[in-house]
């Protein structure tokens, strides 16, 4: 529903003071590693912003991303974000509403033309006319085209939406593609992760609200503030890596001592995400802290990169069979070369002897 009040006005009516903005902004500034002084500017920006209309589309997905986001809905600071946005349509949360829900989407699109944000989770099937995922009798592709047309920006939530994710994994039976493969004429922000960190989702939206523009993105269109460093860079086990102390299996002495999980397949060094700093479940832990290597879930095709337990520096393909063939071929050519040289020598010998004998 088109909102005319600023967030400041809206919240003041609900008895939320500006201190809340400042506190939330301080929190976001910490999350996004913005300079502390940015918090005040951010708070001012938020107060002046309009409530943001958001349309949430779900395609080929597992609802894990939504779960992740709603897990942040404990009565804490972060739930402020839900005062900042107007979630006009959420397919999963509204599933029972049928036709009425679809109408809500169309109404919001009309009222907030060019201003609403589309948040999409899940990949879009392209094979066989996109029949593998439909909502209200329409393919995901149609829905996405229609909804994205008048959007301000599209935020791809989760690795499926950002890079194709699991549906896209080999052999990709549905011909699944990422949102960015379809939406070419609107700004796209990818917030990958399987699922993404809730604070990263809310932080990105808050950034757009307070600064009125997209955050700085990396080459995979991920907000640099959250995806600027690898898990490895920020991992508390990094010192063990430097000292060459590695767990060799999940139940050895090294694992018990909390040594680096590089050798049991941790993808931390090539995975850009904020897990090691923001952590999960209200800051309790993250996979490496819980004793398992990073799967690299915020990277494209993480499912097809040779296995979660295959250490990074090892070859992905089996080289040994080809090596045998190569050795055999080399042996044949080596033998042939030696044979050639020997027969050449014999020819020289008989040639050079001739004149003398003659």
């Amino acid at each position: 529903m088109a909102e005319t009040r600023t967030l400041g006005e809206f919240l003041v009516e609900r008895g939320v003071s500006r201190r809340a903005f400042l506190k939330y902004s301080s929190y976001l500034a910490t999350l996004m590693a913005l300079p502390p002084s940015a918090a005040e500017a951010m708070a001012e920006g938020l107060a002046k912003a309009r409530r943001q209309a958001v349309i949430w589309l779900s395609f080929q997905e597992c609802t894990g991303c939504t779960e992740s986001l709603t897990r942040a809905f404990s009565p804490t600071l972060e739930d402020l974000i839900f005062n900042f946005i107007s979630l006009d349509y959420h397919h999963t949360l509204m599933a029972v509403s049928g036709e009425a829900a679809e109408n809500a989407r169309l109404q919001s699109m009309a009222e907030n033309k060019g201003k609403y944000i589309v948040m999409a989770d899940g990949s879009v099937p392209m094979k066989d006319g996109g029949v593998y995922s439909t909502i209200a009798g329409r393919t995901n592709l149609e829905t996405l085209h229609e909804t994205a047309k008048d959007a301000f920006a599209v935020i791809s939530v989760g690795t499926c939406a950002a890079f194709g994710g699991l549906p896209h994994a080999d052999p990709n039976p549905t011909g699944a593609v990422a949102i960015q493969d379809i939406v070419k004429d609107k700004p796209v922000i990818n917030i990958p992760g399987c699922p993404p960190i809730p604070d990263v989702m809310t932080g990105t939206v808050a950034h757009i609200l307070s600064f009125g523009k997209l955050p700085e993105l990396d080459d995979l269109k991920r907000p640099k503030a959250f995806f600027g460093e690898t898990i490895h860079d920020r991992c508390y086990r990094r010192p063990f890596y430097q000292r060459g102390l590695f767990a060799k299996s999940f139940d050895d002495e090294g694992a018990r001592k909390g040594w680096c999980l590089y050798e049991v397949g941790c993808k931390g060094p090539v995975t850009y995400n904020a897990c090691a700093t923001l952590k999960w479940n209200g800051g309790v832990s993250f996979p490496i802290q819980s004793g398992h290597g990073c799967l690299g879930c915020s990277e494209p095709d993480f499912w097809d990169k040779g296995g979660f337990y295959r250490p990074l520096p090892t070859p992905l393909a089996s080289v040994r069979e080809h090596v045998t063939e190569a050795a055999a071929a080399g042996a044949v050519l080596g033998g042939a070369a030696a044979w050639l040289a020997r027969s050449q020598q014999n020819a020289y010998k008989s040639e050079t002897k001739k004149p003398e004998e003659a």
Partner: protein
Amino acid sequence: MGGTAMTTLLAQNLNSELADAVLREIPVLMQRLLDTGETGTIDLRSLPMTDWDRRQLATRLGEGEVKAFVTVGGTSTVIETQFAGVWWIRHEGADGRIAAEQVVVARAPEFLLAHPADIEAAQRRLSALLSGSAEAQFGEAGHG
């Protein structure tokens, strides 16, 4: 206690010497405040400080005259350290988790000051109260 948790604890008890670095930064910010009136903020949670570092810093800065609690989306604690103009602010979410932690160098932290917009709203509310229509106003605000 599992090995992992123990390691975390160990890692959190290391002295990274960041407390010293932060301490040395504070007088610089104080001088700037005196010279230009500009406030300064150090975000303690975006620095890779260990718990030990933060405890060390808190001990060194100590507590001064002012201690304020602000209840908004969880509790925030604002303490003036034993050094005038140097404030320690800890923002907690409603679940008690620390959301942000700062050292602010200012005459008073912005966070403590009432914002004109809030004053304006408050004045409206008070005026409404005085004009007798207060009940409706308070009732509405109660939702927040």
